[in-house]
């Protein structure tokens, strides 16, 4: 079944149809949440909250881009979490390096490369969490999740021009941060 059919069935109370949509989107939603908050347990909570909230609010979704609507709920949940008083603003780099979600490896990769890549992932995540929220979310949506400017603007309910400027500032900040750890970066970046 295509997305529109599943969506209509979900609106009519078909939980199985809705769960098909959940399976389709749970990984990208979880990844956005994970990059936004930097903690797996919190990202899980936010992902679950996103799907439950979306399920409850399905009747308010008239038409349009369901994907953008779902990611808007997720990014709002991330922002709510980050703004709450109980959040640790700065995640520990050590904790992120130890995080099993960054232990992706391949058979062709040498142990040294694997360690460097894992450290790089942890460092990028650390750099992301230091960005201002409005820049971070744009960077995650466009550069990591590969959303277009227009779709990111739709998710964030901001003009495309705002997305462009925030993205530019976020990239610039990331460049400044990553340049301090050139030994972790690919050769192209080190030559600079």
């Amino acid at each position, binding site marked *: 079944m295509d997305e529109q059919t599943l969506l209509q069935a979900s609106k009519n109370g*078909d*939980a199985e149809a*809705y769960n098909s949509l*959940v399976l389709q989107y749970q990984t990208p939603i979880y*990844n956005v949440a994970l990059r936004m908050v930097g903690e797996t347990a919190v990202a899980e909570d936010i992902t679950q909250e996103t799907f439950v909230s979306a399920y409850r609010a399905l009747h308010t979704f008239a038409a349009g881009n369901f994907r953008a609507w779902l990611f808007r709920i997720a990014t709002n949940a991330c922002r709510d979490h980050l703004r709450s008083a109980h959040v640790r603003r700065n995640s520990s780099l050590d904790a992120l390096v130890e995080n099993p979600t960054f232990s992706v490896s391949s058979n062709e990769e040498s142990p040294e490369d694997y360690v460097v890549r894992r450290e790089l992932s942890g460092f990028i995540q650390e750099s992301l969490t230091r960005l201002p929220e409005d820049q971070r979310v744009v960077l995650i949506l466009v550069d990591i999740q590969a959303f277009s400017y227009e779709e990111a603007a739709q998710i964030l309910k901001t003009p495309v021009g705002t997305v462009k400027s925030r993205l530019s500032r976020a990239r610039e900040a990331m460049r400044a941060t990553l340049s301090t750890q050139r030994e972790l970066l690919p050769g192209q*970046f080190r030559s*600079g």
Partner: protein
Amino acid sequence: MKLFSRSSVDVHISQEMVSAFLDGALSTKEMSQVDLHMASCEVCAQDANELRSVISVLGAMPTVPAPRSFAIPVPARAWVPEPSRPWWSPAPLMGLRAAAAGAAIALAIVFAGDLSGGFGSSPDVPIQVGRTEPAPIITSGTPAGAEKSLPLGEDIVVDGGTSAAVEVTADTLGSADIQPSLVVDDGFLLGLWPLELGLLLLTVALGGFNFVLRRRSSSR
């Protein structure tokens, strides 16, 4: 969007423009202007290369698989309309069963009351004494002189609830004993039989219906 930004002495392409240029998000005219400038400006070209590397590094971030299914839990389906139950489902059957039992009990009460003559206002055994005679005097098993008067038309209740009619005639008058003759009083039964028959039919009908529906219900 400003195409160029002035830094110290040289004029360079703005960061926002470089960023949009790398995403191909400029107009054709702007793209060619930036291209032209970068061909002659090492600073801007270097900026673009570094920014391209940042984008490349970010894009290469691994996708982390979802650690579990986030499908909504089963209780969330509570609001989904339940399939309609057949009218012979257990709840209506209970009512039917109760109705059949009630009819059976009512039948038993009426029938028992009928047999025992327990309905108060009805005459038990009509004894018509000297239908045409004036009020006789009956002496029953008592010595002469111990008389018992019985007004005309009054009934006698014989022990054991047996319906009995004692016909007192001129011959019996004045005799020492009256020998009652047992006869079935069908007058009262005739009065209640429609009710008894109706209750019997109702009980049988409800019981049978209940039996059939229970079989259908259990076979589903």
